[in-house]
């Protein structure tokens, strides 16, 4: 009993110690998959946020205080994530950045919301995350349905009038196909073909022959890169020259390997930008700094979006002139407009979803490289 009391006393003094410390710094939590199968993303997130915190502190921090980043590992796993979230909520953080996977973020949402800590996710694109009415939840990642809008818009900008849509019956690809189909029809673009292939097969000439018969200006394929590669290869063998557009699931270097450079040339796909293609002055300075400090490029755009999450939270605390969670959330929902982040303009709608375009259009060149298009 005595021992327990002692432990309790120690714990109380620890917590008291933390709150005393909290007066000196503004703490921002980072929840990232530092281990597990997404570890490379998580390590990148940590490096980026630490670099940005360093830079911000050199400029005087926020509200006249230095920023302290407290990192917890979510392991890319929902159960680990809920533990990490609980640990962060006890450490007096003003806001939390993270995390990567949608299901992992989902496991932590309620915990932060209950503790009234603003959370900003960086890699979680699942639509449902912002449909639950959490007041303190934001994300810098685009929603899954954003891509459909971008697909319809791109097809319009490239001037195609007759579109064939092909998906692969997975929930992701079918969702994107349905979304694009509805938007294209609304805009008056003719959809001359809508069907699904069976992923995992090798021979898609039957489908290509049928597609060719429908005589489209462009084919929108919403599935993954293995099938996209085979379609391009067999399309070339058929000597059919129609352009193909794909979704971000085809953003994979193996696409060119499977199709061959010749067949892949001219293939368009939508994707959030590669880190090296970020073109604002801010982003360029950031990439230079990152390369100087770590001697590599950020692993992916998703890690960079964690950096944006950090910048947004710092701007939110500065704008609200407070570390009070309600004030930060209010400020981000209402007064936070036209902020220029690393990945472009950032603002939030009432649900906490990012407004503005994140997706870019890429085209494969003759060397098999993915080149950012200006449309």
């Amino acid at each position, binding site marked *: 009993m005595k021992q327990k009391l002692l432990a309790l006393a120690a714990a109380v003094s620890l917590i008291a110690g933390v709150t005393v410390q909290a007066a000196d710094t503004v703490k921002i939590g980072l929840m990232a998959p530092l281990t597990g199968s997404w570890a490379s993303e998580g390590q990148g997130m940590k490096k980026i946020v630490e670099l940005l915190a360093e830079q911000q502190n050199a400029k005087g921090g926020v509200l006249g205080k230095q920023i302290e980043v407290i990192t917890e590992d979510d392991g890319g796993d929902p159960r680990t994530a809920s533990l990490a979230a609980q640990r962060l909520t006890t450490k007096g953080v003003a806001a939390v950045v993270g995390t990567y996977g949608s299901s992992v973020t989902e496991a932590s949402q309620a915990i932060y919301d209950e503790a009234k800590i603003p959370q900003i996710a960086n890699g979680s694109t699942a639509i449902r995350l912002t449909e639950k009415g959490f007041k303190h939840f934001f994300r810098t990642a685009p929603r899954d349905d954003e891509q459909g809008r971008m697909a319809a818009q791109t097809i319009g900008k490239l001037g195609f009038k007759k579109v064939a849509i092909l998906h692969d*019956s997975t929930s992701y690809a079918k969702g994107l196909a349905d979304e694009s189909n509805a938007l294209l029809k609304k805009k008056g673009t003719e959809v*001359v*073909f*809508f*069907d*699904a*292939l*069976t992923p*995992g*097969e*090798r*021979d898609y*000439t*039957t*489908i290509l*022959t*049928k597609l060719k*018969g*429908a*005589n489209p200006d462009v084919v929108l394929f919403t599935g993954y890169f*293995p099938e996209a*590669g*085979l379609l391009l*290869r067999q399309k070339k*063998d*058929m*000597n059919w020259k129609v352009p193909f557009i794909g979704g971000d699931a085809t953003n994979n270097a*193996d696409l060119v*390997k*499977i199709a*061959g*450079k010749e067949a892949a040339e001219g293939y368009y796909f939508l994707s959030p930008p590669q880190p090296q293609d970020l073109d604002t002055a801010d982003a360029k300075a950031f990439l230079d700094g990152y390369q100087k400090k770590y001697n590599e490029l950020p692993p992916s755009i998703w890690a960079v979006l964690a950096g944006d999450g950090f910048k947004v939270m710092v701007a939110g605390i500065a704008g609200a002139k407070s570390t009070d969670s309600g004030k930060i959330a209010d400020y981000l929902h209402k007064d936070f407009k036209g902020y220029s982040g690393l990945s472009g303009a950032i603002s939030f709608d009432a649900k906490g979803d990012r407004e503005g375009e994140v997706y870019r259009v890429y085209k494969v060149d003759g060397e098999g490289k993915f080149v950012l298009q200006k449309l």
Partner: protein
Amino acid sequence: MSQFFPFPATLNLANLVEEFFQQLTNGLAVGGIYALIALGYTMVYGVLKLINFAHGDLFTYGAYLGLTLLTSLALTDRLGFALGVLVLALMVMGLVAVLGAILERAAYRPLRQSPRLSAVVSALGASIFLQNTLMLIYGARFQVYPENILPATTLNIFGLYLPLMRVLIVLASVLMMVALYLFIQKTKIGTAIRAAAIDQDAARLMGIDVNRVIMLVFLVGPALGGVAGLMVGLYYGQINFTMGWVYGMKAFTAAILGGIGNIPGAMVGGLLLGVIEALGAAYISIAWKDAIAFCVLILILIVRPTGLLGERVADKV
């Protein structure tokens, strides 16, 4: 079947006829591969009454061994395309045949006297083992055959698009099937295989070494499956360690369609399944093409429970 665009308004009759024949040739090319793999299923079933579920994986091994040999030995650079691919095919056939024989010794022979279910479970286990071994050796990513190994000649016959390679694949498949048929029907060893298929005990009494016959079946079937894997790799380029599953299921279906245990049945079943899939996709719905193929299978089995050519019991192998 919600979206169904039968014929765009711009098409006329000539285009329709052209498209029909195009789809027919597409189906035959896919069906030729199915038929080659189906032979392995049907031969093993004919002799042992066992569905060799690992057969699809032997097909995958053919594709991977072909890739390794092709890139490490540079056969097509040294010998030219035709001779290079021929030597490559023979090497792959030999290696996969040895693999098939090892499989028979390790997974099936110890269970020869056990209930049939044990052997089926063993077959499934062998399939999982083979697949995962391949993943551990080559990794889980897609592997790709080098580009421009095959001549990209496209024949243009009455406006039909026929890449030379597709024609060659169908021709090679048919040639191998006919050779196998003649081997089974006309040679002494073939007669022994047929005898063992009809009654193993009686065959043994006639002085036939049934163990050797079974070993032979496990050499020939996997060799054909392996060379089918090589052809898929060469023509389609992209291979991965799970590809044997889809092809294996389709080929198994083809074997049943034609009448399992029957060699001409496997050929007919394979080609027919390919054509049904292609025409179903072309004229009904792409997303439903497998469902259509299986509906046809069920209908045929209702009318002819032993498959299309399945009744000639005496010819069983």
